[in-house]
């Protein structure tokens, strides 16, 4: 195994995960005010209706597919009686349709952002980076699916174990260089680590704020001046910021 693949499949993942975790923690502590989805629906709603729904639903489906394909070992699906070829049929159908939704939705979002100047001017540098990383991740992922329609690469014997080994701190970068991986799979996983590394510094953090709590809380909320909020106390640097009321 070469130095390069050790770096890409043994070191890069941990570096990205570390940046991801520490970055998220740091951002959450210091930048509650910047934490959110930064919706632009106010500025343009018509195209967003299609673009946002298709993109997000596609992404949710794609995430489900990744969990099934990468996190769930092949032995488990076989244990419940799902043969490898049956799995592959499901994966191809699900993967291609989810991937198509993501591609179409993403293209529509990109078109909207460029075409409507109101949306364009709210685009931050972080947004540009996110769009670029997402584009790379989506295109490579879609290509990986499309080049593997015939099941020539069984990623469940390479990428899957490799990823699970990463999670249990028993890295096996060599799994990513065997015969069950093609270049496009290697490219896809490598590119996506950069997306994770950048995640905490972008609007993507809104994913961690999915408001599940909403389903159980009481509809009208009260706060007193004497009660503390649930958020962590602001660190000194951020607390020094002035809000309008304070001036």
């Amino acid at each position: 195994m070469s130095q390069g693949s050790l770096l890409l499949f043994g070191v890069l993942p941990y570096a990205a995960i570390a940046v991801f975790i520490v970055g998220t923690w740091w951002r959450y502590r210091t930048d509650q005010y910047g934490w959110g989805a930064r919706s632009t629906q106010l500025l343009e709603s018509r195209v967003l209706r299609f673009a946002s729904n298709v993109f997000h639903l596609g992404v949710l489906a794609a995430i489900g597919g990744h969990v099934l394909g990468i996190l769930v070992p092949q032995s488990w699906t076989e244990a419940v009686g799902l043969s490898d070829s049956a799995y592959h049929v499901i994966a191809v159908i699900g993967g291609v349709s989810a991937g198509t939704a993501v591609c179409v939705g993403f293209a529509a979002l990109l078109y909207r952002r460029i075409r409507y100047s109101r949306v364009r001017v709210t685009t931050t540098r972080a947004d540009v980076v996110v769009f670029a990383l997402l584009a790379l991740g989506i295109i490579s992922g879609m290509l990986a699916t499309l080049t593997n329609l015939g099941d020539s690469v069984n990623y469940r014997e390479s990428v899957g174990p490799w990823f699970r080994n990463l999670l249990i701190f028993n890295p096996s970068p060599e799994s990513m260089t065997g015969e069950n991986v093609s270049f496009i799979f290697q490219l896809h996983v490598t590119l996506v680590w950069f997306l994770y590394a950048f995640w905490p510094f972008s609007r993507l953090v809104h994913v961690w704020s999915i408001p599940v709590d909403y389903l159980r809380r009481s509809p009208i909320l009260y706060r007193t001046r004497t009660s503390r909020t649930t958020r962590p106390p602001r660190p000194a640097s951020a607390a020094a910021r002035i809000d309008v009321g304070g001036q």
Partner: protein
Amino acid sequence: MKIRAQVGMVMNLDKCIGCHTCSVTCKNVWTNRPGTEYVWFNNVETKPGRGYPRDYEDQERWNGGWKLDGKGRLQLKAGGRLKRLASIFWNPNLPTLDDYYEPWTYDYEHLISAPAGDTQPAARPKSLVTGEDLDLQWGPNWDDDLAASKVSATGDPNRRELEDKVKIEFEKAFMMYLPRICEHCINPSCVASCPSGAMYKREEDGIVLVDQEACRSWRFCVSGCPYKKVYFNWNTGKAEKCNFCYPRIEAGLPTVCSETCVGRLRHVGIVLIDTDRVEAAASVPNEHDLLDAQLDLMLDPDDPEVREQALRDGIAPDWLEAARRSPVYAMCKRWRIALPLHPEYRTMPMVWYVPPLSPVESLVDERGGELDPDRLFATVDELRIPVEYLAGFLAAGDPEPVRRSLSRLAAMRRFMRAANVDGRVDAQIARDVGMEPSEVEDMFQMVAIGDYDDRYVIPRRHGEDAPDPFGMQGTNGVDFAGCSVTGDASASTEDTLASPADAAAAARFDLREQLVHRNGGSDG
């Protein structure tokens, strides 16, 4: 019974001259920042008219506020919580900037820099969002003073069922002004709509605020409020709203809009609310009962039992005294001359209005002087502004409360005229409208004279209760991105400004630069 204090406001529409001073002073204090150019925490609408944002009163379209579900239970009109979460990627009820207006400035620079030519140079309108040329089609108060015109009056959602009554022929036209701020509702649908729990009501005074640090940009508060008084800052991606000038209220001062009101028509005070019964009151089946149900929540501050319970619930004695002298309680409940805006939205709003009477008086003048006492009620029905039209937005369509209010105001004038001109106290005038002479005199003192100390009875906050105001920064309403006393202009990791901004777009952020400078610069 669980008692809490709640701030409220009453505006006497008779006195509003539509000068927009309130809107301008409010804007200068709260919303003169990038992202909020289109935002008016206080706005003044001409009625009949379409309002701001356009047609906001049409809840069939926007689905704001509450409704009763099939079983008579209170539910957000936009649907249940799961439905809201399912539409989190795209909110079907959200107005766009075009429903408010795209804010603009003029290219004044061109007036000076244009080369010599045959024609005068013109200052073109430029969007404050994109910096591009704008073809102006709609703006704030676009239909200001145009109540008679077919374009604005015919669009008024309140008018639709009164086609024949609300005339738009020039000679029969009427108009009135409706200043609006957030209602600081007792049952706020904005709070119930917020998936992140960022919006809250303050226990101490009922002011409704956005915790901008907890806001996650889901924008359901904007669509959930039937009055459209939560706004979305397009620059920061966070919700902002009227905060009832709480820093002033806490210091015992009236809001900026009240303080600067040219007509001196705003009254600010507190009422004691029984919070245990709010949900039941907001769920009464008949919309016409909502007014009484809400009045029922406002407890009598002179009742010893209420006072005792209030003290037990932690309301300070000076606040009780303020509740006793409250102009809001007096006008809403004691004299019943003020009415809530669109009670049928079931949010239990706390900014109430005294309906305008002036047209009665002009009608009387047209007929040559004295108003026939026997014809008082009939005259109220002959108003140029049809009672039904007023009832459409002040009483869920029930004309009775509007009639009572107008009759009492008319009776007050006659009573005081008799007292001042003829020198006789005609108790019958008062009794005819169900009041005592002393009550009419008190009402006159409040409505007609309106001394500063009568209009504003605002108890100061008890500062000793707040352990760490500094730690609560950013959770009480508005916050700036990128402003800090240390001069570090990037407190937010994502820059809130566009990077590929062209020159025009850069120019529009001058204001922001100034603000950053003012707050964080050498003189900060």
